[in-house]
């Protein structure tokens, strides 16, 4: 560094004052890309970071719906409350379906990284079937609630319930369409870098939906009936 500073016109490398991402070598500056001396990040890292920002903003939106549900949980307007409406077994099956769907999606990304097309398509198909099963159970629950005169217009509690769970269901629906698109694109265009990045974003989306569902079954279903 001192040698480069001696050359006129060459700006010495600025050390990271916060020692972000320090490691065993003891120095804050690393050779990682995207900071300091590492040079610019690859497109995959930039795309992943951008999509991660979107996912976090989506999670903030869900937090607003969760807050509405937590506030309005007691507002049943004389109608049915959480304890008499929710079916634990149904929610448990939905949870397991979505969790295994997330796992199958992980297997699909592994197959993609290993460039095994058939395994990728099979894992994505399993992901789709499990996700569709989840969605079918959720739709059955919704129609059942509406048939029991517990639709979204019945009370503030039910409005909030249908909003937060329905919004998650809409995300799953969009994810299923995206999943089919990715299967088709990998089939038609092969393992191109841009296709790999799209599948990476899809897997991030699918795993994030499972994280949101953890909050749904905890805050909406389990805590809803416990309190």
């Amino acid at each position, binding site marked *: 560094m001192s040698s480069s500073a001696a050359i006129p016109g060459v700006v010495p490398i600025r050390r990271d004052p916060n020692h972000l*991402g*320090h*490691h*065993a*070598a003891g120095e804050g500056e*690393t*050779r*990682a*890309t*995207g*900071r300091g001396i590492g040079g610019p990040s*690859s497109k*995959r*890292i930039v*795309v*992943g*970071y951008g999509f*991660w*920002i979107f996912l*976090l*903003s989506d*999670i*903030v939106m869900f*937090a607003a719906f*969760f*807050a509405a549900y*937590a*506030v309005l949980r007691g507002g049943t307007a004389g109608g049915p409350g959480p304890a008499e409406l929710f079916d*634990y077994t149904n929610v*448990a099956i939905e949870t*397991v379906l979505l*969790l295994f769907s*997330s*796992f199958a999606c*992980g*297997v699909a*990304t*592994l197959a993609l*990284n*290993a460039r*095994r097309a058939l*395994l990728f398509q099979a894992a994505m198909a399993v992901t789709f079937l499990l996700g569709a099963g989840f969605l079918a159970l959720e739709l059955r629950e919704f129609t059942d609630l509406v048939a029991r005169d517990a639709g979204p217009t019945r009370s503030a509690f039910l409005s909030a319930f249908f909003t937060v769970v329905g919004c998650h269901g809409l995300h799953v629906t969009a994810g299923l369409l995206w999943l089919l698109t990715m299967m088709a694109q990998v089939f038609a265009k092969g393992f191109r870098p841009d296709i*790999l990045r799209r599948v*990476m974003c899809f*897997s*991030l989306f699918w*795993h*994030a939906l*499972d*994280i949101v569902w*953890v*909050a749904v*079954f*905890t*805050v909406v279903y*389990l*805590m809803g*009936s*416990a*309190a």
Partner: protein
Amino acid sequence: MSQTDDRAHADVAPGDEYAHEEFGSGLRSYLIGLGLALLLTAASFWVAQTKVMWAPAIPVALLTFAIAQMGVHLVFFLHLTSGPDNTNNIMALAFGVLIVFLLFGGSVWIMHHMNTNMMMPAEGGAPMPMQHQGGGHH
């Protein structure tokens, strides 16, 4: 992933392993994640239905299990690490968690106080608490 030093050329983002990886090597992380998530899910449903636990402790236990499971998902499914190439993702996550906490916790906190302080007259004849404490011309 501890050997983060020689990754200047690496293409790593959350949910994303090295390109051209052998299939078996990444599977372990997903299997561990699946096992832990199943365990925590089972614990959540058990706690919610059991009569063994002290009732006020149940929401606390549920929240603990939920946060733990979200952590499991982040680490084992989304592959969020403490490595230098993940610092930006971690910082964004920390900011997101802050906003979620302010939004959710703040709403519940404020609305709880609004409910307890402003809904008393609806109970029929109960005097407003403000009249008891208020008017404080001492």
